[in-house]
């Protein structure tokens, strides 16, 4: 079987998850590579969650939240923005491509925007190839 990128998506409950839901109910065609995890706010996404996703075999991680100014908890998404910018820099210094992590904003009415982000991310990660973590032998050797 050919390799398919695995992407873990952390979607905020109030906007992005509903945006994804809308894409589904409207039967929009969307690449099936994103595994969705619903969080109450993009601000809930601690960098460790993203690292853990990579450790468990993700090739990319997508974080989606409400547009700036729209966060249900006022400023959760601004905090995420800072955290993610820094995390991407950190990963780049350590040799992990920045494009494997993406933060974007999707509102409840933007099903089409959700689809375009997912498709775009899938292709970018496909181009990068699998994220190689420790092979079993390296880990227990």
């Amino acid at each position, binding site marked *: 079987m050919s390799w398919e990128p695995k992407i873990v998506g952390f979607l905020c409950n109030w906007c992005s998850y509903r945006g994804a839901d809308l894409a589904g109910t409207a039967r929009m065609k969307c690449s099936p590579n994103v595994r969705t995890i619903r969080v109450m706010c993009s601000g809930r996404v601690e*960098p460790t969650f993203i690292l853990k996703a990579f450790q468990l075999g993700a090739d990319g991680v997508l974080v989606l939240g409400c547009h700036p100014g729209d966060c249900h908890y006022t400023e959760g998404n601004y905090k995420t923005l800072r955290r993610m*910018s820094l995390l991407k820099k950190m990963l780049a*210094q*350590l*040799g992990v491509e920045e494009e494997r992590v993406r933060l974007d904003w999707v509102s409840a009415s933007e099903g089409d925007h959700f689809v375009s982000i997912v498709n775009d991310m899938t292709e970018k990660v496909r181009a990068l190839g699998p994220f190689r973590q420790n092979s079993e032998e390296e*880990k227990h050797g």
Partner: protein
Amino acid sequence: MIGNIRDLARKWLEDKEVDAIFALREQNGYLAPYLFTNVDKLGSMEISTQYRLSYTCRPSKENILSLMQRKEPSTRIGIVARGCEERALIELAKRSQIDLGKTKIMGIACTQEEAIECKCERPYPDNLVLGQKVEGVSQDENVDALLNKSITERLAFWRYQFSKCIKCYGCRNACPMCFCKDCKMEQGVFTETGWLPPEIPMFLFIRFSHISERCIWCGECEKACPVDIPLLTLFKLLRRDIKDLFDYEAGMDMTQEAPLLTTLDEMPMKEELASGI
């Protein structure tokens, strides 16, 4: 130098500027942090580049100064601090670990040899009271070498480095900025215990992601590491990134809000970031 420090400590205590002085003391050939309240004991006060007063004590995982301040909130403590220690105190205060209003910093400058030994860029505190400022070490060949590497070379470099890690937690324990009671590096959900080498990208990565914005490049982690992983080099690289991204330098200015602690109102985000990253 130590003579001048002892004299000044005596003066501060006698003039009641502070109730106690926190410094190192030598006893039976060993150095340990000590709270001097009695001027007669000042003869045993020492300084060293090997110990930081900003250390977090184990296993209670509390900063010594913050522990003292919690137990004795009204005591005014004078603290003998080098540049890195002062920076640590500033970052700790920003995170409500200590109360700088209740401390008086006796800043001492490091010598040129000490600065070179620590590869320190800023070997003096802001509150310089004793000693002569010397130039910091601005060039670090390890940093330059990594900056010139491609992303795949970097991955190879760090994979090799991290494969040496024996999960001794020395870097975390030595770091003045690691003070959480519940460390994710100890939790089974995030770190597979009992296996070597640590998984990539977990274990050390957890610390990097939590610490880099507040790292005050004291180099304690690198010195603590028994297998010589160039941890300080990584933090120096990240420090450049943080300066670019948030225009922020840890430990420099008490009034500057730490980027990960602030929200929109307190520190505007760069425009280009607002459209997702």
